[in-house]
C-alpha cells in the first residue's frame, strides 16, 4: 500500500515538497523501488500517441542552460520559451534549467502544474540508424530480432484482460505496427475512424438468418480453417475480429454523435473556438482531434485497454520554425483535451504516452530545417506519472553528459545529435510493470528478453511511473 499512499499524496499536490526533500529528480528515479504489481488497479488503460516523422525534442524541451545549445537561440529567439524547474516541473522565471516550447506549454500548463507530466529525453535504441522506418519498427515492436514484425501492444493485450471485444484499437489511416500481429490469438482492431467503421453491405452480417453460426460461417470464421495455412487463419480470424468489434464501436459512434465536444476536439473550421491557435484550423489537426476524441471515447466507454493514434508532419527538414510551432500548438491542445477528459474519471486511469522515433540534429541545415538525429523526446501524462524531465540532470549549471555534449564532440552515429540514454524497451517495460502490473515473465513476452539486460545504462528504468 505504500505506493498507493504515495500516489495519493502526489495527487493532492504534495509532490513539490517531496521533490525538495529528495533533492534531485535523478535521485527519485530508483528502478528498484518497492513495487507491488498486485496493487495495480485493473482498470488502467493507455493512449499511445505516435508523432510520426521524428519530433524535434530539443526544440520541445530546450536545454537552454547549455552554453552550446545554440539550437534554442536559432529556433526560439524572439519567442522566448518558458523556463521550467525540475521539481516538480514548475515554471520559474529566471531559472536556468531548461525551457519548454511556449506553444506546447500554453496548453499543457494544467497537467504540468498538477504534477502529471514526465518528459523523457534521449530515448532510443542501442544501435540507432537514424532511419524513420527502422527506428519506428524497433520502437513499435520492442523486439529487434531479425524478421520480427509483431507489435508490442498486441503482446501486451494478452496480459491485461478485457471484457470488451475491442481489447485494443489503432485509430489511424494505417494500422500502427505496434498493434499488428500475425498470431491469430493476438489480432487487434484497426479502424480508420469510429464513424466509418460500419458494414457498407450488411448482407453477410445481418441477413443470414439470425444464426450466429451462420454469420461466422459466411466469412469462414468458425470453419474451413486449415491450421497449416497461416494466411487462411490470419484472414479468417481478422474477419472474426472485424465482426466482433462492430457492436462496441457502433455504441461509441452513437455516443459521440450526441456527445462530441467541438471546442476541445474541433474537427472542422466552424468548431475552432475564437482565440484558439490558427494551427487548429487545418485538415491534419481536424483528423488528429477526431482520432483523439474517438480513442478517448473507446477507452472510457468500453473496456478497451490500449488505443493508439498517429500525428504526422514532424519530419521538418525544411523551414522548421513555423511548422513546429503549429505542431506544438495542435499537439498541446489535443493532449490537454484528453487529459481533462480522463484525469478525474472514476475507474479509468488513462496514461497518455507520447512517442516519436528519434530526435533531430542539433545544428540547423541550410534550408532552415533539421535532419535526422538520434535521442528522442517522449512524454508520459497521467495521474500515476512521476513528473520531471528525465535524462536531463537537475543541476541548473549543467545538463549532465547528455546535454554538455549535444553531439558537438561526438562522431559517428551520434554526431550532431542527442545520444540515446534510455532504451525505448526500458520505457515500455516500465509501462508494462508499473502501469499495467505485469510480472517480469509477462514483461519478457511483451519486450522479449528484457529481464536478461542488466538494469544499468540504457536499460535502467527511469521511474517515471509511480
Amino acid at each position, binding site marked *: 500500500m505504500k505506493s498507493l499512499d504515495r500516489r495519493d499524496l502526489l495527487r493532492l499536490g504534495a509532490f513539490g515538497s517531496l521533490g525538495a526533500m529528495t533533492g534531485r529528480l535523478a535521485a527519485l528515479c530508483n528502478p528498484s523501488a518497492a513495487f507491488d504489481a498486485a496493487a495495480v488497479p485493473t482498470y488502467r488503460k493507455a493512449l499511445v500517441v505516435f508523432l510520426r516523422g521524428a519530433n524535434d525534442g530539443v526544440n520541445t524541451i530546450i536545454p537552454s542552460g547549455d552554453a552550446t545549445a545554440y539550437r534554442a537561440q536559432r529556433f526560439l529567439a524572439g519567442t522566448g520559451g518558458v523556463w521550467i524547474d525540475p521539481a516538480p516541473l514548475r515554471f520559474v522565471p529566471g531559472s536556468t534549467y531548461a525551457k519548454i516550447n511556449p506553444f506546447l506549454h500554453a496548453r499543457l500548463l494544467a497537467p504540468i502544474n498538477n504534477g502529471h507530466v514526465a518528459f523523457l529525453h534521449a530515448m532510443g535504441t542501442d544501435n540507432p540508424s*537514424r*532511419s524513420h*522506418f527502422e527506428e519506428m519498427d524497433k520502437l513499435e515492436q520492442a523486439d529487434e530480432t531479425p524478421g520480427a514484425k509483431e507489435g508490442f501492444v498486441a503482446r501486451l493485450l494478452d496480459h491485461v484482460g478485457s471484457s470488451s471485444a475491442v481489447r485494443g484499437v489503432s485509430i489511424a489511416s494505417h494500422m500502427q505496427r505496434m498493434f499488428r500481429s500475425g498470431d491469430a490469438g493476438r489480432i487487434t482492431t484497426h479502424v480508420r475512424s469510429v464513424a466509418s467503421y460500419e*458494414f*457498407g453491405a450488411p448482407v*453477410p452480417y445481418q441477413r443470414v438468418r439470425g444464426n450466429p453460426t451462420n454469420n461466422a460461417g459466411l466469412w*469462414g470464421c468458425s470453419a474451413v480453417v486449415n491450421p497449416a495455412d497461416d494466411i487462411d487463419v490470419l484472414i479468417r480470424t481478422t474477419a472474426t*475480429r472485424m465482426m466482433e468489434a462492430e457492436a462496441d464501436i457502433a455504441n461509441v459512434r452513437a455516443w459521440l454523435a450526441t456527445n462530441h465536444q467541438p471546442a476541445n476536439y474541433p474537427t472542422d473550421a466552424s468548431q475552432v473556438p475564437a482565440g484558439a491557435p490558427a494551427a487548429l484550423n487545418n485538415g491534419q489537426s481536424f483528423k488528429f482531434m477526431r482520432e483523439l476524441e474517438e480513442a478517448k471515447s473507446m477507452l472510457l466507454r468500453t473496456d478497451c485497454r490500449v488505443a493508439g493514434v498517429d500525428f504526422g508532419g514532424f519530419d521538418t527538414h525544411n523551414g522548421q520554425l513555423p511548422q513546429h510551432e503549429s505542431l506544438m500548438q495542435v499537439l498541446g491542445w489535443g493532449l490537454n483535451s484528453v487529459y481533462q477528459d480522463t484525469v478525474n474519471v472514476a475507474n479509468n486511469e488513462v496514461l497518455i504516452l507520447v512517442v516519436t522515433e528519434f530526435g533531430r540534429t542539433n545544428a540547423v541545415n541550410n534550408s532552415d530545417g533539421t*535532419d535526422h538525429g538520434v535521442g528522442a523526446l517522449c512524454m508520459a501524462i497521467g495521474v500515476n506519472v512521476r513528473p520531471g524531465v528525465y535524462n536531463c540532470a537537475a543541476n541548473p549549471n549543467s545538463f549532465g553528459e547528455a546535454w554538455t555534449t549535444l553531439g558537438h564532440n561526438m562522431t559517428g552515429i551520434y554526431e550532431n545529435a542527442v545520444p540515446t540514454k534510455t532504451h525505448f524497451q526500458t520505457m515500455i517495460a516500465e509501462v508494462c510493470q508499473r502501469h499495467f502490473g505485469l510480472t517480469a515473465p509477462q514483461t519478457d513476452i511483451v519486450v522479449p528478453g528484457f529481464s536478461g539486460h542488466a538494469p544499468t545504462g540504457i536499460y535502467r528504468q527511469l521511474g517515471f511511473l509511480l
Partner: protein
Amino acid sequence: MTLSTLRAAAATLAVAGAPICGQALDPQAFHVVSRTSFGHTLPILQAASQPGGIAAYLQAQLNPAAGDNATATALVNSLGTITTLDELQQLQAVLACFSDHQLREVMTQFWERHFNTNFGRIRQVVLAFGGTDPDAVAFEAESNALFRQHALGTFYDLLVASSLGRAMNAYLNLFANKIPIPNEDFARECLELHTVGLKNLANQDNYTHNDIEALASCFSGVSLWRSSLPGNLITFPASPTALQRVFIADWHDYNSKVLFGGGGPIPQLMIAAQPQNSALGQRDAYTVLWFLANADATKEFVCDKLIRFFLGDDANEPTLRTQCMASWGSNGGDLRAVLTTLLNSSQFQGTTYRRKRLRNPMEYAVGVVRALGGTVSAPSDLDALLDTTTNMGMDLFGYPSPDGFPNDSYEQTGTQIYMDATGFAKAIHRRGPPYANPPYQGTVAFTLPTDVATGIGTLVTGGSATNPLHVAEYFLRRMYVDDWNSTDLIKCARLVAQTENGLNQGLNVGNPPGSNQDYQGRIDLLAFLVASLPQAFKK
C-alpha cells in the same frame, strides 16, 4: 433444397481443392497470372490453361506490344490531358482493370511505391512557389509516365526519373538543398529505400552518416526554378519556365567527394572536384546515380525485394537472387532480364509459394472487377473502386511516407481493410431492397446473369443454371479455380437456395425482380458473397 440435402449432395461431389466437374482451369496458370497481373480474367485464365499457355502469356507480358486493347485505349483517350489528381488516379485504375499489359502495370505501381512521393506535400511546395494545382499534378504525372515507360527497362532510367524528377525534388526537399549544410532528406531515402538499402543480407551496414552527407552534397543545387531565386542560375532547360528543374550553381558543393569510404561492403566512390560555379557541378548527381544503379548492393536489395514481391514475404532464395543479380548486368540494371529470370524460375513456377500472398487493396478491388468481367463506360465509373482502395489505406499518390505503401502481406490485413472490402463487394450487388442498401455511386457494371446461363456450360460441364450447387460452383471456380472446398460450396449454394428465413428457394430465371424468388438478385447476392470470401484477398 434443404441444408441437409445440400450438404449430402456436396459431400458426394466435392473434394477440397479438386474441381467437381467441367473444364479444368490450371492451378499453375492461376498462380502465374495472379502474381503477374491485377487478377485474372476468365479468357486469360482459359488461354493460359492450355498447353504452352503459361509460357506464351509470360512472353507477351514481358514484351508488351505497342498500344493496347480498344477498351483500355478508349478509356485512356477519354481522359485527355490529365490536370487533376482524380484523373491521374483514374488512369491507374483504368489500366489496372483493362490494359492487356498487366505486368507492366503491376511493375509501374511497384516502382511508384518504391520511389514513393506524396501529392499533398508536392502541392504544398508548388503552391508556395506560385504554381497551381495542375502544376502539382503534372509533377506526379510525368514521374508516373516515366515509371510506366521504364517499368521493364533499366533501373538507372527509373532512378534518374525519380531522383531528378520534379515530384521527388519537391517531396524530399531537394529544392532547398544548398551548401554549406545540405538538406539530407532525399539523400537518406535514396540510399535506404531506392538503391542499396540500410543493410546488406549479411546484416552489415551498407553506409554511414558520412555517405548521406556526401550524397546530399552531390545533389546540392538541384532545385526548382522560381522567380525569387538568387545568384548564378544554370538551368537544365534552356529557358526556365515556372517550376522547371534547374541547377543553381551558387548552391552546389564543388569540392571532391568520397562515398562509401568507411570500409563497408560497398566499394568507395571518388568524385573529383569541379570548377566553382560551373555547370559541371550537375554531373555529380548523374555520376552517383550511375554508380548506385550498378552497385552490387543495389542489385541485391532490389532483386531481393522483387523476389519477395513475386514469391512471398519470407522467400529466402539465394540461388534465385544470384541469378537475378547476374541478369541485372552492369549497364544500369536490365529489369526485363531480371523478371524473365525470376518469373521462369522453378521457385516461382512451383507450388511452394502458391496462394501464400495477400493482395493489396488495389489488387483486391481490381481483381474482383477482372474476375467477374466488370465493365465501365467512363473512367469516373471507377471512382467507387478508388474510394475503396483509399479507405483501405492505399491512396494512390497520397501515401505519406517515402517508404511507400507496403508490399508485405503482413500489412494487408486488418479489421478496417476487411470492413471496407465488404463495402466494395456491395458495388457488384446491384439490386436494391430486399438484398442491400442503395448501391455505390459510379458502379462497375457486371454481366454475370448472362454469363451464368452460358458460363455454367463451360466451367461446370453438365451443370444447370437452376441447380444451386452448380451455380455456386460456377462462381467459386471462376473466382478461385481450385482454392475452395465443400464448406464454401455449401455456403454459397445456401445463399442461392434458401430465403433468409431458411425456406427453400427455387431458382427460376423468370421470377420477378425484387422478390425473394428474384433469380437475378440472388445471383448478384452470390457474386457479393464470393467476392467477400477470404480467398478474395489471396493471390
